[in-house]
């Protein structure tokens, strides 16, 4: 009976899905996407969860059975189990909706990480030698080193942010039903940006993640700063998207091609109008410079980072940067290598300005979220060094740098959240006084995260900086690395200032203790462990990074 049903359904499905879809290339994204849809539907259904839950369970069952019939047994079984567990729990614990949402989202992210690992083992590195690349959906997606590392960074960041932000959202009463689905959609957009191999996919992915982030940063509806952040982010983001789109259009006009490899092969030809291509490149640089907040296109960053709910800020700082840089790496290294003489000096100059500007302006900030925002700007400058190197080493070092930066940033913002929950307001340096005495563990983790951002040995950030500097020197950009060193010393000054306030000053007895929930301590502890582990014994990961330069070109 069941076999006859299957034999009836399978050709039907085969008809719907074009034959050439390489499911393995998008497998990790399917899970968060599906979960986002389910959570959104549950959110819309409000009190009548069963209306959503029952069809969702049926669909999950159907998909699971189909997967098992295609001999993909374990994932199929997991899909069925999750499909039933979710609605069942929604019905069973009606008062714990937000906890269920958070756990479901986390489960989807864990699944996505597992699938990313599976993808690495079966598709990207089937043999021990190194990474290969896979082209999917007629060249629209490239599944390779950049995609892999973007996925790891983005999923990991989201997974860490969920427990860290859970109590914070609840306390500020902004744990509305759309938070988790929007977060998952953002993540999917970011992962898609990491795989996007033509201009259209790239733009769509960028808009998916941006629009979800516009909403998320305005989550605190009664907080004027959050509203301001959201509006500012939206307006400036829309302008930068327009500029980017215009640049992409010019590149298309010049080359007649939308996929990056095609652009790359035709942009160097004599028949290609060089001026149009160069103009397109310039506009793309400006547009993408906004997204990854390179100086002088950074001016939205401090206000948005300060105003947005802190867990969203942490996620933006860590993951958006990784995704944005994935696009940068692909654009410059796959589409524009022929115009190298044009963009390398420009990007090197922007990197120098960004590193110095971010570090110097951070010196005079008093608000912790603003300091970290300027530090995020500085770090974009370091990551760009790897791009400017325009080499395999530069590519891999940038990917590694973004991962280490993301972990350090999440650790730091996580601790800021604990402080913010104490006073429900902005966290200035004064708030940190004597924290090393009142809550030594939290202060220790914050200090460790800051040391990692400063790039001191025995933390992940050191290995990140080491690789980026090495790529820069190997590419002959010693001057840029020297500027990087100078800005590192300046940056170390303000990181140290934070550490000094915590450990070297006496606590103010009137201030209460920071609020550390289980989720928060779990999240920041994992971040701290990763910082030390990747700083002392990075070999298992570095080994993967070293082979990540196999791109779809």
């Amino acid at each position, binding site marked *: 009976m069941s076999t006859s049903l299957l034999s009836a359904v399978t050709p039907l499905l085969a008809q719907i899905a074009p034959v050439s879809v390489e499911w393995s290339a998008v497998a990790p994204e399917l899970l968060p996407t599906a979960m986002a849809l389910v959570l959104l539907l549950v959110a819309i259904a409000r009190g009548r969860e069963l209306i959503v839950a029952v069809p969702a369970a049926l669909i999950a069952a159907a998909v699971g059975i189909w997967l098992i019939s295609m001999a993909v047994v374990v994932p199929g079984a997991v899909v069925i189990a999750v499909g039933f567990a979710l609605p069942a729990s929604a019905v069973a614990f009606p008062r714990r909706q937000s906890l269920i949402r958070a756990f479901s989202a986390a489960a989807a992210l864990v699944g996505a990480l597992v699938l990313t690992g599976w993808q690495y083992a079966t598709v990207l590195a089937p043999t021990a030698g190194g990474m290969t690349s896979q082209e999917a959906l007629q060249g629209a997606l490239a599944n390779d080193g950049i995609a892999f590392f973007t996925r790891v960074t983005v999923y990991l960041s989201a997974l860490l942010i969920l427990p860290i932000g859970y109590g914070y959202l609840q306390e500020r009463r902004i744990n509305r039903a759309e938070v988790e689905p929007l977060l998952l959609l953002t993540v999917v957009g970011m992962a898609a940006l990491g795989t996007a191999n033509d201009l259209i996919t790239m733009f769509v992915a960028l808009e998916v993640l941006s629009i979800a982030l516009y909403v998320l940063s305005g989550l605190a509806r009664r907080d004027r700063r959050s509203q301001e952040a959201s509006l500012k982010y939206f307006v400036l983001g829309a302008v930068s998207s327009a500029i980017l789109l215009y640049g992409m259009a010019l590149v298309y006009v010049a080359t007649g091609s939308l996929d990056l490899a095609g652009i790359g092969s035709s942009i160097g030809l004599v028949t290609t109008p060089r001026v149009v291509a160069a103009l397109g490149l310039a506009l793309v640089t400006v547009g993408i410079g906004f997204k990854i907040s390179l100086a002088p296109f950074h001016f939205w960053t401090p206000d948005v980072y300060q105003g947005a709910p802190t867990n969203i800020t942490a996620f933006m700082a860590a993951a958006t940067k990784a995704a944005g840089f994935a696009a940068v790496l692909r654009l410059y290294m796959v589409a524009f290598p022929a115009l190298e003489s044009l963009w390398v000096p420009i990007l090197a100059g922007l990197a120098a300005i960004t590193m110095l500007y971010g570090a110097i302006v951070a010196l005079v900030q008093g608000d912790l979220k603003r300091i970290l925002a300027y530090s995020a700007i500085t770090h974009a400058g370091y990551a760009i060094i790897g791009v400017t190197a325009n080499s395999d080493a530069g590519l891999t070092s940038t990917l590694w740098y973004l991962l280490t930066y993301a972990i350090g940033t999440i650790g730091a913002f996580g601790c800021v959240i604990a402080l913010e929950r104490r006073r429900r307001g902005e966290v200035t340096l004064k708030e940190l006084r004597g924290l090393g005495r009142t809550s030594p563990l939290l202060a220790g983790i914050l200090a460790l995260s800051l040391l990692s951002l400063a790039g001191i040995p025995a933390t992940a950030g050191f290995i990140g900086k080491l690789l980026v500097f090495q790529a820069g020197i190997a590419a002959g950009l010693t001057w840029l690395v020297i500027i990087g060193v100078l800005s590192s010393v300046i940056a170390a000054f303000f990181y140290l200032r934070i550490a000094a306030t915590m450990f*070297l000053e006496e606590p103010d007895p009137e201030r209460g203790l920071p609020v550390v929930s289980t989720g928060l301590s779990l999240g920041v502890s994992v971040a701290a462990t990763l910082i030390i582990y990747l700083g002392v014994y*990075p070999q298992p990961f570095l080994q993967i990074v070293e082979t990540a330069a196999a791109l779809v070109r």
Partner: protein
Amino acid sequence: MGIITITLAIPVLGALLLGLHDGDDRTSKIIALVASLATFVASIVLLVQFQVSDANLQLAERLTWIPAIGAEFSLAVDGVSLVLILLTTFLTPLILVASWHSITDRLRGYLAAFLLLETAVIGVFAATDLLLFYFFFEFSLVPMYLIIGIWGGAGRKYAAVKFFLYTLLGGLLMLIAILYLYGQTGTFAYSDVLALSLSATEQRWLFLAFLVAFAVKVPVFPLHTWLPDAHTEAPTGGSVFLAGVLLKMGTFGLLRYALPFFPDATTEFAPWLLGISVVGILYGAIVALMQGDIKRLIAYSSVSHMGFVVLGTFALTTTATSASVVQMVNHGLSTGALFLLIGFLYERRHTRQIAAFGGLAKQVPVMAGLWLTVSLSSLALPGLNGFVGEFPILLGTFQINRTAGVLATFGAVLAALYLLWPYQRMFHGPLDTADNANTSDLKPREIGVLVPLVVLIVAIGLYPKPLYDIVEPSVDRVLTEVAEGVDAAGDVLGTAEEDGS
């Protein structure tokens, strides 16, 4: 796992144990002391296993660390690193005993910071992989920053940050040079970098990058300005460790890395460095003379004394350069002992102003006697350790550069002045104030800390031969590498000219 790794690992394990247990302060102190004594024992085993006749890096240990970027966890010692490791492991338990009662605030953190610092310093002396070396070199900043910043004096915040940023900047410049060398070899292994042949221009820039990193650490005039602040504000233990061991990371680095890696640049810059050292010797001495704070005075005396070490290093003769290694140890012992004495006095009086003291010798005869002995050692009185280091340095310098030798000798004369004058003002004369009359003499614990130091001061002064025997072959090896490097470069240059013609 070899003996070097064990020596390196014991303090870290001690620090971990301190972090895990949550017992009382007494248990913490005992854990830390036992760990540091075990480290000392391990380093004695290291000394026993060491082949004195062998000039090369020996007892090598190699573990894979980050093969993806060609970095190895590789350790080895030669005579120079051996004596400095011994100095470190010898001083650490003494420092812990010295601050047995004086540190009460956040004691566990203090002890753990010292143990981590000890590991970092041993790592610096034993690493034979450039990345590993840099790893320990920069990591040592963190515990030292905390020691100065948390347990230091009134101006500790400023001093700690200044210390951190100065050394970080120097270190990062060296990192650029290390990465450049890595670009040439593809590994961070010491021997591979040593085998490189670099052009004169490359050598010049790379040498300068290494020089800045080490010169900040030593500190060489005019990069010394962090030192008086750090020394004065650090707690007693921190000052002892800073003067005794951390400064040696700079002179050690010059000898181990800067000289043999860049022989042409070394010979090219050597006269300049002799000059700078002489300026530093005289400057440090004169500024020390003008200090009213006895701790600051000794801090400036360190600038002067370390000037002698750099002078001897760049004299590039076996006599002078070996003596400068011996002088590193001597400075560690005598300045360390002076800082301990100052610390003990400060605990009693809570002031360090020389003018506040007078006629103490009648009241505290033991302290006065030890103070005088250590001061005499520091000013290089024959028969004590300072002399057997400083005299050969001056002799060697005089042979190659008379002016430098003569001027440096003035520094030795000034040392007598800046050390004996405060001694006279503090310990002799009338016992005029009530505070002075109520100062108590050293307790047995404090004497116990100082006695091992004084024994070594006298022993090295009377019979320095064992120390020289350990150090000399290794110094000879380095100087041969410098000379051969210069010859080889000359040959390359010669053939190039022949080709040109």
